[in-house]
């Protein structure tokens, strides 16, 4: 693909042609030649969309909830983009991407742009591809972009990090899931949703989650002291009065909250939308949105550079007869890994040194 065709594709996308948007996302996914230039050209048109991440264990009801959210936003006259990430087979690379089936409320509405993506390969390039796809949707003019992913593993956590607001979905009775949430996702969730709240055990799960969230900032919250006074907590003065913590007007800190929904019937979706709006407003008021964007771009630059340098080194390794041959020499005790690394990297370092002048 030559530069003229790239520019044309970008122009078509900016003109609102669906096919062009779809093709750009394919190029990003495929890492097709020229995709970098396309994303570069798109960048100046981005920064207007509100990005919402939705994560949770398989079967928690993410797709169904995303469908309902998209519907509500559409009813308000906003346009929506959805990216649904599904795992792919590590053996064949194949995948069945099934999230689309749940998008029943937005059938025939082209202003909901739904795109399935598979977690291709293990290169860790997925979060890059996702954030580039978000840029394409943003430049296209979508008001809300929802990124949906299974919440397991570092890859997924990286993806949700690209969102302005992170929503974590939990299903009732998933005591062990809540345990799992401790590691990593509890810290990045802005809103927790117990879906299928009409099921047994929903209130228990809500209580578990609340307890865990409160523990994060107040170890003595909900502590059953059996009538005795609660021990002093050093931060006590700053803590809100019991029960009022969800809608405290306090500016600086966002208190993660726990909501209940029944995605299938749409129950609780209004409150969720309201909370998402609140969080969005909070991001703007406190300047956190900008700060987050800065962090994100910094991470993106780092990741890109790392990937590029890794490729450079791969080329160099191939030129020197491949890493296997080196490993063999190491096995034979002719050399050791550190020396090999120095050998390969030395010339590159010299080059960089020279260029610095």
């Amino acid at each position, binding site marked *: 693909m030559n530069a003229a065709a790239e520019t044309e594709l970008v122009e078509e996308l900016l003109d609102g042609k669906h096919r062009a948007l779809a093709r750009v996302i394919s190029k990003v996914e495929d890492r*097709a030649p020229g995709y970098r230039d396309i994303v570069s050209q798109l960048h100046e048109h981005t920064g207007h969309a509100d990005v919402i991440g939705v994560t949770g264990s398989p079967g928690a009801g993410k797709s169904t909830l995303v469908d309902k959210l998209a519907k509500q936003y559409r009813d308000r006259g906003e346009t929506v983009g959805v990216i649904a990430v599904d795992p792919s087979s590590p053996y064949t690379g*194949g995948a*069945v991407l099934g999230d689309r089936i749940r998008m029943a409320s937005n059938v025939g509405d082209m202003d909901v742009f739904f795109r399935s993506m598979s977690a291709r390969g293990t290169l860790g390039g997925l979060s890059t591809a996702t954030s580039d796809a978000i840029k394409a949707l943003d430049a296209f003019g979508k008001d809300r972009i929802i990124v949906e992913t299974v919440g397991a593993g570092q890859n997924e956590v990286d993806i949700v990090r690209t969102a302005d607001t992170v929503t974590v979905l939990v299903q009732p009775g998933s005591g062990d899931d809540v345990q799992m949430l401790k590691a990593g996702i509890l810290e990045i969730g802005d809103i927790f949703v117990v879906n299928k709240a009409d099921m047994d055990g929903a209130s228990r799960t809500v209580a578990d989650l609340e307890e865990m969230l409160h523990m994060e900032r107040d170890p003595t919250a909900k502590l059953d002291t059996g009538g005795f006074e609660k021990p002093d907590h050093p931060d006590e003065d700053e803590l809100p009065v019991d029960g009022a913590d969800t809608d405290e007007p306090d500016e600086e800190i966002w208190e993660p909250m726990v909501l209940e929904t029944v995605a299938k019937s749409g129950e609780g979706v209004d409150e969720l939308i309201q909370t998402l709006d609140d969080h969005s407003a909070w991001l703007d008021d406190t300047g956190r949105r900008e700060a987050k964007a800065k962090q994100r771009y910094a991470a993106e630059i780092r990741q890109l550079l790392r990937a590029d340098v890794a490729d450079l080194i791969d080329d160099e390794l191939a030129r020197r007869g491949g890493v296997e041959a080196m490993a063999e020499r190491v096995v034979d005790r002719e050399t050791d890994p550190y020396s090999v690394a120095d050998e390969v990297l030395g010339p590159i370092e010299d080059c960089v040194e020279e260029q610095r002048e």
Partner: protein
Amino acid sequence: MSADQEQRTIRCLVAKVGLDGHDRGAHVIARAFRDAGFEVIYSGLHRAPEEIVQAAVQEDVDVLGISILSGAHNTLVPKVIEGLKEYDAFDDTLVLVGGIIPDEDKEKLLELGVAEVFGPGTPMEETVEFVEENAPER
């Protein structure tokens, strides 16, 4: 930009159109495509032609496989193809039809722009091979 290695994967939409609840064939073909290393999007049952068009356009699939066993292919397939044309998506999408299609109808579908029609008993390998050989260059 030699640094990036292209990772092209064939994307397929397996679609059930119209009032036809027989999806065993669609499931089997979806699995076969997945195991061949394709990315498969399954539409679910009872989809309207517009929905299929929407999905095919947004997902930017290389291959659209329409499964019909209801006998309504002469009505539904042209609608899908019209819709694809409307979004400039027809030229580089490989459209396949699977199901019970009488021979005289098969000719008509091929004339419309369907790349191939696969009847009952077609070996999986044949379909997969056909896709691998004919997936559009982009």
